[in-house]
Structure formats: C-alpha cells, structure tokens
C-alpha cells in the first residue's frame, strides 16, 4: 500500500473558500493533498461540500455561479484555478460528475467515444473501448441505445466508462457507487484499484459509501459543513470510533439492524 508521506503531492488544495451566487459560503477553508498514484477519499455527510470541492478543482464551478474566493489549487505545483476546464482535462484531470450527466441524445457508445475527445490515437481508443466493455458488459449490450433511455445504473457506468476513455492521469470521482447494484459497487472499486495499480492513475473520490471507500482508499479526509474535520490514512480512520459509529454504522456490538435504530440521533458535532 502506498504511503502518503513518501510520494510527491500531485494535487494540492490550499485553504479554499467557495461562494455560490456571491452570497452562499459553502467551503470555509478546505485543504487537501492528493499524492501521486494514490487513492484519496473525501468523506462526509450530505451537503458537507464534497461535490463543491471536486468542482472547484475541475473548474466547473463557474458554470454554477460559484467562485473560489480564497486559497489556491495547485496541480503538479502549478496554479490551475484560472484554467479552462478543457485545458485541465488536457493536463490529465478528469471528473466524473455526480448525477451521471450523460449526453442523453448520444448513444452509449458515442458517449464513451466523446470521453476520448482529447485523444488522437485511434487504435488505442478502440482498445480502450473494448476494455470499458469488458469492465461493463451491460454497456456493450446497450451500446446502441440513446443514453437518455438507459437505466440509472447503466448511466452511472457510462459516466465512469467515459472518464476512463480519456486516459487521464487523475480522476475525480463523485459518488461512483450511487445507484449501482452491490456486486457492481465492489467491481467498480476493483476497477479503480486495478487502474490505479496498473496504470498509476491517481484518484480523488467523494463517496457516501464510507465502508467500501475506506477499504480501497489509501488516505481519507472527512468533511463537515465545509471544513475538513479529520484526516488520516484510511486504515486509521477505519479504526476511529467516531468514524465507526457515524460513517460505518457500527456500534460496539457490530452492525445494527436498520430496523432497530429506534430514536433519531442528532448528528454529532465534530470539533472544527
């Protein structure tokens, strides 16, 4: 397993603040370091700011009237905040957006091919297409369907496959497991792992499914209300009792049945 301390930092987020619509302050000073060749997980509850962080990195905030007002984002040591999102993809950073965002009117295969938009090596593209189809045989069956008509899970596969098609150096994955069948969730993380190990692709993933995420990630950050409240190597986080209780749903007696959680608990306030 990779150790964060030893490798160089590929992506660095320094104390950023994000404001939507000029008034809504969402991130209140978030800092992250993503090591090259590692899998870093970004955890946290609803509305913690995971998606916002990823969008800030990939420069997609502008199109949502959001803005990084403080701090800096460095990729390979260079400031990338002011780049065009497309330029960032050329640098090798690609994002899989939350909520799929397939191109509805394009077929599944066309969607995947658009992923390779920035590439010119036709032969390799075809090979990668085959690779994606081996990862997701379901997509091969539906390759000629318009993506808008495919099921939720199929769309999620398209989104991930599309990102893989661009042969990136870094992938920002926003909730990859959402809406996928259980064995597929494992499979996706296996793919992440494989791509990470074989091709050295760096991952930063935002995930609600903490359980799986912490099993595959090397390092984790926990975000609450726009602040990083805890970070550490994945295995340490897994052992942390608070994380266990709130993110893994385990009490001292092991996993509780969802039927038995009788009283609603107030969310624990982390010390910020």
């Amino acid at each position: 397993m990779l150790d964060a301390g030893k490798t160089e930092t590929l992506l660095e987020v320094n104390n950023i603040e994000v404001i939507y619509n000029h008034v809504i302050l969402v991130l209140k000073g978030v800092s992250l370091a993503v090591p090259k060749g590692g899998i870093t997980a970004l955890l946290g509850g609803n509305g913690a700011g995971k998606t916002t962080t990823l969008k800030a990195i990939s420069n997609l905030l502008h199109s949502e009237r959001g803005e990084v007002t403080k701090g800096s984002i460095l990729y390979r040591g260079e400031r990338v905040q002011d780049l065009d999102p497309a330029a960032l993809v050329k640098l090798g950073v690609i994002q899989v957006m939350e909520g799929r965002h397939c191109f509805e009117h394009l077929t599944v295969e066309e969607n995947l091919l658009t992923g390779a938009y920035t590439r010119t090596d036709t032969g390799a593209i075809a090979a990668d297409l085959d690779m994606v189809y081996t990862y997701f045989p379901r997509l091969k069956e539906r390759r000629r369907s318009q993506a808008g008509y495919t099921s939720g899970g199929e769309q999620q596969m398209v989104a991930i496959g599309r990102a893989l098609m661009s042969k990136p150096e870094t992938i920002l994955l926003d909730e990859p497991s959402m809406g996928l069948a259980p064995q597929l969730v494992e499979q996706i993380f296996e793919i992440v792992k494989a791509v990470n190990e074989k091709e050295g692709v760096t991952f930063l993933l935002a995930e609600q499914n903490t359980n799986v995420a912490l099993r595959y990630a090397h390092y984790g950050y926990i975000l609450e209300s726009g602040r990083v409240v805890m970070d550490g190597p994945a295995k340490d986080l897994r052992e942390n009792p608070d994380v266990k209780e709130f993110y893994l749903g385990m009490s001292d007696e092991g996993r509780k049945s969802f039927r038995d959680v009788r009283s609603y608990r107030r969310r624990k306030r982390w010390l910020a």
Partner: protein
Amino acid sequence: MFYREAGDFKTSYVEDSQTFPIRFDRWRYYAVVILAVAVVPFFINDYWANAVFVPFLIYAIAAIGLNILTGYCGQVSLGTGGFMAVGAYACYKLMTAFPDVSILIHVLLAGGITAGVGVLFGLPSLRIKGFYLAVATLAAQFFLVWLFNKVPWFYNYSASGQISAPERSVLGVAVTGASATASAKYLFCLAILFVLAWLARNLTRGTVGRKWMAIRDMDIAAEIIGVNPLTTKLSAFAVSSFFVGVAGALFFSVYLGAVEVGEAFGIQKSFLILFMIIIGGLGSIFGSFAGAAFLVLLPVLLKNVLVGQLGWATDLAAHVELMIVGALIVVFLIAEPHGMAQLWRLAKEKLRLWPFPH
C-alpha cells in the same frame, strides 16, 4: 443592519404566507401605492402620461400575463402580440356596438374573449414543447394579425383597415379619445393594473400557481404526482391571455387611440414583452413590473440623453440606442440570468448579512 428579518415573528400560517412577510417591505409597498395613487396624478402631464406612465402600466399588465404563461407555467409564447390584437379588436367591436356601456366592462370582456382564443391556441401545447412550442405560437401571431387585417367586419369596414377609439368614459370621466386627460388615463390603467396584479399574486401563491410551476419545472413528474397537464396548461393560457387581452384593449383604446394591427401588434410586440419578463425575472410579479419599467424607460431615457442632451443626429442616436439596448440585455443576462427580481433578492440577502460579507 439595514434589513431585518429577525424580530418579524409569525404566529399563523396566514401571516407567514402574506405577500410581504417582512415589515419593512410592507411599508415600502404602501409608500409606493400612496405615491402612485395620491401624488402622481396631480403632477402628470401629457408627455409623462403618454410617453411613460400609461405605456408602462399597460405593458406591466401584459408582462404579468406572459409571465404567468412563460415564467410560471414554462410555456414560452411568441404570440403575445396576436393576443393583444384580439383584446384590442374585441374592445373596438364592443365599444362601437354598445357605446353606452362603460368602457371598463368592454375592457374586461375583451380580456375574456382573448382568454377563449388563448385556450384554443394553447391546445397544441399538450404535445409540443420548448422552442417548438415557442415557434408554434407564432402561428397564432401571424394568423391573428392576418385575420384582423383581412376581415373587414373587425374594423367596421373602414377604408384603410385602421381602427380608432371613439371617446368613452368611466363614471362620467373620459378615458379614451382625444379629450381624455392625462390623469384620467393614468388612473384608469393604474386601477386595472392594481387589481389584476393582486389577482395574479393570489393565483401564483396558491394551488393553481403551484400546478403551473410544477409543470414548468418538470412536467412528467408533475403529471405523476397528480397534476393534470391538460387543464393546468390551458388554465395558464386562459389566465395569461386574459391579462394580455386586457392589456391589448387598453393599449388600443387608452394609449394609442388608433391602431393598425400589423404595426401595433406585430411580432416585435411579442418579443418586447418577452424581454420584459426575462429582464425583470421569470416567475415573478415584481419582475414583470421591473422589466416593463426598464424597457419603457430605457429608450426614452437614452433618446433624451443622446439627442436631447448630447445633441446627436437622430439616426446616429437611434442606431446607438439599439446597440445599447441590445448590449444591456446581454449584460443583464450575464450578470443575473434570473432577472432583476433575482438581483433584488440577492441584494436583500446581502443586506441581511451586512456589514459582514457572507
């Protein structure tokens, strides 16, 4: 802190759902109403009435109408000019056929007739959506204009096809025709606008409004949770056309006094009113007012500055004016795609936080 919300506690849902829940807003609203009713009429002259106030009031009615259809119900319409023409011609026929009836009744009936026509042209909206529908509404625009131009019955067989408003009065005061005074015209339009805006506000805050907005935001989901798209869309067409029809009737009878259908109610009018609601803010009654005010005032202002103050040649000024209006529209959309109403909301949100930046 200038703007306070805290301290305004509501103890009932009625209070909570009133139009201006914040006391400060409410006062400002009363101040504007008093100004409009009790001060303006004493100072208004022909120029201000005919060049600014009367068109503003009438356009505001039309803008509210279109906003109901487009802003609230999400059905983009480019047929507004045509529907205004229906209102105008209906009013003309009624005025000349029943000269002794109050013009107020004629205007309202004209609105009703337009509502009927609106429903008819709204029928395709059940199948056709988005820009296809927008373009399809042009069928109404062109057809109606053609009809009023072609069938002599509509213009009482006059030689040129123009219709001219004879003098008619409300409560003994002339509001149409040459001898109507500036303040009479102004107050007549103001009263109608006031009542209609209030009705529109009621409609949009309750069940009907929610149905419209549901169809606008996601028609399929709306249907699945129990909104009947047929009646909902048609009710929006009907209500919207009613407003637009009333505006058309006033536009012809009170404001211009004589119109030629292709010129006064052409497609340019449809676009103008669409502009008003977009610049003002889709889905906002206040936005309709703001948009109407902006687009009525801006050209007058620009003209007075460029020609009156700077002494430019009129054609240069007109070209530059066109460019400025166009550029301002774009700048507005870039600055705030949700219109002036949203700018206003954001400003309030900022004020609430003032002096802290966030």
